[in-house]
């Protein structure tokens, strides 16, 4: 299972609105100087207790073990929100954040970034999250790629807000027009399923800013499954969760978790590698299950 490489060719330079998907082998040998990869983990919902995942106390740890077991370690790891499951009790929220932080501190890779999900941040405007992990939106550069994180959860109404939009525009204005840009956020920036709250209230304004740049790819979480969507030339890729899968977009009345399958525990859960290839620049996604078979 771990050797199976599903990969996609993303964000082809020159407005390529295509991604190829299929099964293939990616060779990790002979990487060019600027090639690297990162891991996206999402939606661990630490503190969740319920029938949709009777192994909720172990799933995050198993994911950490699996990541630590990757032959070639990633340059960095990004958690795209819902680190913890929501609680109305501020003390309990901090307890969950503490436990989450302790578990992920076992990751071999120490370059780990975090953004919040609405479960972490919407009830206190991100206050507890910030105590543990700092800013909820920021940018950084890595080997020629500009990474931007956006916070669409600290506002309980899922707005990014004018201040952050202005920050985004200013941050990107410092980049070359054809810069390689990767955006991380929690909720989809487009209306995926509004009746399930799979949207960002002012996400269209973000997309409008991003549209100026020909080379942008978005990675997000929230919907607990893979989804691949284009807005113009911008590809949006959601990640699997580490707690329970949710139904396909709009496929049923309510977005209730898919039931746990005792015959195939942890099915539908996982994380991904994203390999940034230098020449030509492209991002290749490889999905991994939580546990080694």
């Amino acid at each position, binding site marked *: 299972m771990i050797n199976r490489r599903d990969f996609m060719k993303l964000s082809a330079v020159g407005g390529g609105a295509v991604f190829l998907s299929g099964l293939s082998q990616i060779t990790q040998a002979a990487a060019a100087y600027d090639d690297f990869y990162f891991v996206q983990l999402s939606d661990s919902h630490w503190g969740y207790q319920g029938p949709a995942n009777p192994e909720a106390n172990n799933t995050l740890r198993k994911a950490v073990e699996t990541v630590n077991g990757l032959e070639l370690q990633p340059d960095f790891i990004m958690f795209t929100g819902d680190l913890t499951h929501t609680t109305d009790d501020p003390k309990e929220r901090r307890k969950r954040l503490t436990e989450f932080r302790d578990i992920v501190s076992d990751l071999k890779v120490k370059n780990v970034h975090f953004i919040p999900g*609405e479960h972490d941040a919407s009830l206190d405007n991100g206050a507890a999250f910030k105590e543990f992990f700092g800013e909820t939106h920021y940018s950084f550069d890595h080997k020629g790629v500009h990474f931007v994180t956006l916070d669409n959860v600290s506002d309980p*109404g899922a707005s990014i807000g004018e201040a952050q939009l202005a920050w985004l525009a200013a941050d990107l204005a410092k980049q070359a027009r054809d810069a390689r840009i990767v955006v991380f956020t929690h909720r989809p920036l487009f209306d995926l399923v*509004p*009746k399930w709250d799979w949207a960002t209230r002012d996400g269209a304004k973000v997309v409008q800013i991003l549209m100026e740049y020909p080379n942008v790819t978005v990675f997000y979480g929230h919907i607990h499954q893979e989804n691949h969507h284009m807005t113009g030339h911008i590809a949006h890729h959601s990640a699997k969760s580490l707690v329970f899968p949710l139904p396909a977009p709009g496929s049923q009345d309510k*977005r209730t978790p898919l039931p746990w399958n005792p015959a195939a525990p942890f099915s539908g859960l996982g994380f991904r590698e994203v390999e940034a290839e230098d020449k030509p620049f492209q991002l290749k996604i490889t999905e991994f299950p939580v546990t080694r078979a």
Partner: protein
Amino acid sequence: MDLQISKGWKIGTACLAILALVSIGAAHSAAPKTGKERVVKVVAKRFIYTPNEIILKAGVPARLEFTSLDFVHGFKVPDLDIRVDLPPGKVTTVHLTPQKAGVYDFLCDNFCGVGHEEMSGKIIVKD
């Protein structure tokens, strides 16, 4: 001050349009004085709307009067292009005249706590 927003046209496949006039503010000043409106009072609290099934008649103007008890819940009906905040301590009124029979989901789109994801309901429009 009343904020009157014409929430535009939602064109369905049958090219039927639904015009929703949403007004935020005190009910007495915002409501048109037609007298023909169907009035439905809705209470919003963590994590339920009461009622959570609102039955309306196609082509008949309706006035939804929301009272929130504990939080600035949201009221969003994606397929009718309606969304408002429901601050506690006042009545929030939504005027709409649904044109097409059908079931329209609504939800609270302001994260309000552990049961937030279940806070939803349906507007059922009958011919």
